[in-house]
Each structure stands twice: as C-alpha cells, then as structure tokens.
C-alpha cells in the first residue's frame, strides 16, 4: 500500500478539503468536498452538554425562507414566556451574518461581559436574556464576512461558553436556509435533548417552497418539529378596519402545508405596522399594545406551543 494520506493533503478540516489539486484521485475526495467530515473535540461536546443540563426546554425557530419573521416571533414568544416571572427565558441568535435580536429586544449597543463562569448574556429584564453576534461587534457597520467553519466555531462557543444560568426556555433564532448553521446547531443540540423546532412561514407559495425544504431537512437530521406558525397572514387597515390579504395563500398557506406533512398548525399572526415599529425601536409590544388582536394572537400561539411541548 502506498501512503494513506496523500502528499500535500490540505487536511479534512481545511477550507480546501476535497478541492485542492492534490485531492484529485484521492478516494476520500468526494466526502471531504461535501464538508461532512468534522472532527469534534469531545471536550467541547461535554461542555455543551453540561451547560444544557440546566436548560429545560430548548426550542429552535426555523424557516427555509428569509424575512418571514423568525426573529420577531422568537422575541415575541420569549417575551410572552417571560411574563411568568417564575420562569427564566433566553434568546440565542445564531444568525451570524444578519443578527436582528439585539435591535428587536432593545439592547443594541450593549456588550457582552466575560466572567469566570463564561460570557454573560445581556439582560432585558429579571428573567429574560439574549446572546447574539450583534452584541460582540464594535459598530453597526461591521460586517461578519465569514465562511462556514468560522460561523460554526462561534455557534459552538455560544453553546459551550455562555453562562445562561438555569433556564426554563432557550429559544434559538436561526438564519434562513439549510446549511452550516443549521447542521451545526442540529449536531450539537440533538445529543442534548432538543425539545424541537417551531417552523415559521408567510402564506405565499414562494415562501412555502423553501419551508417544505426546511421540514424535510428536519426530518432528515431528526429534529423534532413542534409545529408550524403562519406569519403575515392578513392586514387590518388602521383607518377602515377592513382586512386584506397581502401575501396571498395561493396554495392553501401554512395550514394546508401542515396537514400535508401531518404536523401541528400552531396559529396565524397578522401583519401589523405597530409590531414592525415596536421591533425597530426595541420596545415591548405587549406593554404598548396589550389589548391588540396581534398581542392576543401571540398569547394564543404560546398557549399552543406550551400544549405541544408538554409543560
């Protein structure tokens, strides 16, 4: 037998794995190029598992599609959970290139502190905290121009080094797609009794197309699905109070899709310019508009979620 490792092998963890000229003809070229080989330091996995032992419900918020309201829903669900002062709630934003959680939760400009027990998340109230790459950047202009491996490294750090304390709910906000961040979070969280994923979509087929892919991704990697939420379902004109549908459910919307996949349908949230504004300003929508139809829709949604995660 010749050398098992070809000369000039870039290494399986390298960016060039499977793609360097020396990889041509190597029997492992295909598997290296797929990026599926990731050698994990077992110590980090143990660190993640230790942290997660103190977290009761670990919930992912997913959508194949961007801009459907993953971050809005994550923060609103977190705020409703945190209305029960006996519960500790946290939001972890793993959208590395487009972190929205700091602004939506009203902590933009704040920074994360280091302590002996790890990174301290930023607290919005007594029992609600947030961690995001946005809290690590010096300026709102800073772009995080990272390829996959570096993003995975940060997610690993978020899971192993953030000192959340003891939590009842950890909500994990994700970027759109089915790529590095999603594979990594699945890989690290599945051995830690991940509660499941809430899938968010808007009603139109252009969005459902991507969301069906996300559901099939979850099934492929064994992420349990708590249910599906439809956001931006209708709009009520503030002047004439009449409803109109902006993003038409031309193929039956999320409800129809949920029944096709035999998944729970958790509810619908309307489009509301006051909600957009509250997210932009980072204020608590429930404090300002507690008796709005949108607020009740969220409270109903959280009831459904609690029923499905067996409180």
């Amino acid at each position: 037998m010749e050398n098992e490792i070809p000369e000039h092998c870039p290494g399986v963890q390298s960016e060039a794995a499977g793609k360097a000229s020396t990889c041509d003809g190597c029997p492992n070229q295909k598997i290296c190029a797929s990026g599926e080989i990731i050698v994990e330091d077992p110590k980090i996995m143990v660190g993640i598992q230790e942290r997660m032992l103190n977290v009761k419900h670990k919930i992912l918020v997913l959508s194949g599609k961007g801009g459907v309201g993953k971050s809005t829903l994550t923060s609103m669900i977190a705020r409703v959970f945190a209305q029960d002062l006996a519960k500790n709630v946290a939001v972890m934003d793993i959208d590395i290139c487009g972190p929205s959680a700091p602004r939506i939760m009203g902590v933009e400009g704040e920074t994360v502190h280091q302590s002996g027990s790890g990174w301290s998340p930023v607290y919005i109230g007594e029992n609600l905290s947030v961690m995001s790459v946005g809290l690590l950047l010096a300026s709102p202009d800073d772009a995080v121009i990272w390829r996959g491996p570096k993003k995975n490294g940060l997610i690993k750090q978020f899971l192993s080094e953030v000192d959340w304390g003891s939590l009842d709910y950890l909500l994990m906000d994700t970027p759109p797609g089915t790529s590095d961040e999603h594979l990594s979070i699945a890989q690290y969280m599945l051995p830690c009794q991940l509660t499941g994923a809430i899938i968010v979509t808007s009603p139109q087929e252009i969005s459902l197309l991507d969301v069906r892919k996300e559901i099939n991704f979850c099934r492929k990697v064994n992420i349990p699905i708590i249910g599906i939420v439809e956001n931006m379902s209708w709009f009520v004109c503030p002047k004439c109070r009449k409803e109109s549908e902006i993003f038409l459910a031309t193929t039956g919307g999320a409800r129809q899709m949920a029944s096709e996949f035999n998944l729970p349908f958790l509810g619908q949230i309307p489009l509301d310019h006051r909600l957009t504004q509250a997210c932009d300003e980072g204020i608590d929508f429930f404090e300002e508009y507690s008796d709005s139809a949108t607020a009740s829709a969220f409270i109903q949604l959280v009831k459904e979620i609690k029923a499905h995660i067996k409180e």
Partner: protein
Amino acid sequence: MANVQILPNVKHVFLVLSGKGGVGKSTVSTQLALTLQNCGFKVGLLDIDLCGPSIPRMLGLENSAVHQCAQGWVPVYTSPEQTLGVMSVGFLLENKDDPVVWRGPKKTAMIKQFLTDVYWQDLDYLIIDTPPGTSDEHISVLENLKTVKCDGAILVTTPQAVAVGDVRRELTFCKKTGLNVIGILENMCGYVCPHCSECTNIFSYGGGESLAEMGKVPFLGRIPIDPKLTKATENGENFITAFQDSVAAQAFITIVKKYMIPQEESMDVSEPIDV
C-alpha cells in the same frame, strides 16, 4: 487544468444583494431581467441561492430541467426566442421539496460550476441573484468574478430598521471587497388599502433612502407593496408586461434605463419603451 475563462461572452454583470432575507431580491432580479428583455436585450439570470431557490417559480419554470450540451449546461429559456435564460439549483433537484443540505465548500464548488460550466452564449446582461448574508456564496461569487468586469451590485432593502441594519453590513461587505455599489432600492414601501385607499407604511418608510444618503451611494427608488406583483411572482407571470403603468413597473424601468443601460447603448435600443 487550463484556466477556464469565466463568462467570456457576457457584456454586463450585475449582482442583486441584501444582507436581509425576504426583502425581495429574487423579485427584483426577475423584474429587472424581464425589463431588460423587454428592451430588446439578451439576458441571463443566475440564481445562486442554493438553499432557497425562488427564481424558477417566479418565472413559471418550476418543472423545467437543465440539459447538457457539448459546451456545458444549457440554461432554461422562458421563450423559444431564447432572450431570457435562467440557471438555478432548483432545476437540478429531482423533487422540488428536497432540501439542499450543503456546507460552505460544496456551495462554493456549485457556484464555481454555475459560473464556468453554463453555456450562456452571447449575453448583453447577466443578473446574479444571491441568498441573504455575507458568507460562503458571496465570497465565492466575488472570488470567481475577479477576472470579469462586474458592473456592480444593486442592494435591496425594506424600509424598517431591522432590515436596514443588515443591509448596512452588506454595504460594508461591498466596500471591503471592492464591489461597486450601483445603489440601494427600497422595496415594500407603503400599502394602499383596497377598501379605503388609505396608505399604511407596514414596514416603516424611508430607511433605504437614509441608508443611501449615509453610505453616499445612489438611491434607486422605492417600490410599494403591490398585491399584483406578489401574485405575478407567485404564479410566474410577466408583471412588467401586464402592468407596465404600475408604480412598481415604472420603478424597475427607471432603474434599467438610468443605471443599467450605458447612455450610448440606450440610444440604439431597438424597441424603446414609452415612459
């Protein structure tokens, strides 16, 4: 391996970018492509959103497949005249619900193939639609376009601060990588109630324009929320032809005429549009 020349017969290359998802990148890409096609140009549309390809559906090409020829992959054409050719990972999937679960390196390899192995023939314009973010796809496409004269990037945002914040980062990405910014387009500005005609700024107003001012790049205009446009993209219909007089169509036509067609070329356009 010999150095493959990238996009040898393409005159103009434009990227459509946004840090934020769901702001209308694919809608803008398709409408600009259709507008250019209506102006009499030969246009290519390349969709490098590998995990969420929307272009095939928006152009009514959902069940089409890509064929091979001696020169490479043949793009899917919207009409027998072959004036608008499209390439997307959506055409390569066996089942449209199949997820593309790829990490960065595999996405990088696919994008390289899209740029080197597609037989576009002679194109006046190639528009590249991108996924949200500033990561593998974006770095890869720019690395591969190094040897090509790229006209620049059209940045799309919605007006609210949460979206503008991400597009601000994308602007930094363009500056860092030396990519020319054509300007910023503000999408989903204002919705006119079909019952009482009251206009509500559901996603706020003016964020794109302020960002353009702050970043000292041109402001390309604003597009209202128009259910006719949403419906046309849902059903793969040609919005630009069907609703030429709408505010949205006029905004796309203005961008094409003002920012995409060089002045000397715009004069000898065979079929100019009446504006």
